[in-house]
């Protein structure tokens, strides 16, 4: 007779039972890691392990039938944050779609079926942050990072000095860093 998710979750939440934690880990780590790997690639081990560590450290309250969706929600958010960090460094990387289907994992989110797809959410966060930039800074940033023009080409196109391009790029980056980190 196997212990159900609810029994394990209850023992973890109410007694901080390490064995229950370990059993939950064995049960869900492979799946969560695979989910994370879709988005964060090589960081998947770290991100997935951090999720379990945070479950242990900030033991969530028990709620019937919610363990699975709780774990996936934590993983979803951990991936999102990891990607936001990366987006500041490499804006283009967010344009790539992860391979395969995210829908399958969504079935494990069942109670949160309305949750948006992770990449959509990320793109949404980023485009909101970019939209907040002043017009000229925004244009400069997109020409550089989206269209991959050189600073000299941007300067020529916008009829400004290269110094001004540099200034706008660094302004954009510092804004994004503030919004996304």
């Amino acid at each position, binding site marked *: 007779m196997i212990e159900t998710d609810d029994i394990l979750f209850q023992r973890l939440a109410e007694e901080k039972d390490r064995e229950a934690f370990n059993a939950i880990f*064995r049960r869900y780590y492979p799946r969560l890691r695979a989910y994370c790997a879709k988005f964060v690639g090589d960081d998947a081990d770290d991100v997935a392990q951090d999720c379990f*560590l945070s479950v242990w450290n900030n033991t969530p309250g028990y709620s019937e039938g919610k363990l699975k969706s709780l774990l996936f929600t934590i993983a979803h958010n951990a991936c999102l944050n990891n990607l936001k960090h990366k987006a500041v460094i490499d804006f283009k990387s967010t344009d790539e779609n992860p391979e395969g289907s995210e829908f*399958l994992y969504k079935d494990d989110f069942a109670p949160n079926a309305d949750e948006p797809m992770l990449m959509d959410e990320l793109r949404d966060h980023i485009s909101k942050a970019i939209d907040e930039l002043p017009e000229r800074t925004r244009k400069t940033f997109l020409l550089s990072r989206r269209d991959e023009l050189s600073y000299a080409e941007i300067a020529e196109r916008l009829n400004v000095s290269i110094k001004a391009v540099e200034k706008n790029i660094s302004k954009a980056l510092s804004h994004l860093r503030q919004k996304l980190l």
Partner: protein
Amino acid sequence: MKDFRNIAFSYFSGTITPEDEVILHEFIQHDQKHMMQVWEEEWIEMGCPSSYTGNALKRVNRRIQINSFWRYATAAAAVILVCVAVFSYVYRTSSPEEQFICYSTSAGEVMRITLQDNSRIILNAESDLKVASDMSSRRYVKLNGEAWFEIQADTDHPFEVVTEEKQKVVVTGTKFNVTAYPEDKNVITTLLEGKVSVFTQKDTIQLMPYEQASLSIADKSISKSEANALEARSWINGDIVYSNIETGNLLHKLERKFGKTIQGGDSIDEELSVSFRNNESFDQIMEIIASLAGFEYSIDEKGVTIHE
């Protein structure tokens, strides 16, 4: 039916291919007999996690162990600080031009100093601090090693911290940390509160809170970055907290904190992030760092020797 069961198992094991993900998702949409649930229970009942999962669980359990120490730690750390303070010594020296009071710490020692103007300085292990004996005309100290400064505000008399590497930090009233050990590749100044100016022979940099200036000893260039100022002062509580520190450099810091000798670690340049907040023993810390950086070591009466 058999096929779907296999695919489901590969999903639970985290080894499913992207193509099978699509197939399995399709299947679940019409899974009226709730086969997924049945298979999931079957998979759990088999109860043989891969060695991959087993290793990941070990790693997480080790990290939990490290974290859970720290509940007992704070009190113990305070007692140790008082003990090591007994070993501190203060001596006076004189130069023709200026009189200094010299403070010096040995390995494993942290010293708390209050200056005439009520500024507080905490000196880390194996560090020297010379303080101008007459602070009324000029507030001026020389540092070799690492110290945390909490400087009383006095706009008429700026406070200057000078390091060997020809760097000068000038402040009015602030809290900041300066690290300038001989083996460090950079002199690092980290600001928590207020404002400081860092002067080198070539440049001047202004720091705002949570920024840090890094003076490269190799080419004397100075750069500014964001920094976790609380991390920079963690050593005051006896904690060992570093982000992205080269293993070789970290081992030097351990030698200093524990008064041990560690040989053969200089060339390990892998970067680690560590957080020991629980008064862990030297042996515990070495074991964890060795497993993180992937080296082996042995301990004898002379100290630690690292075999890469």
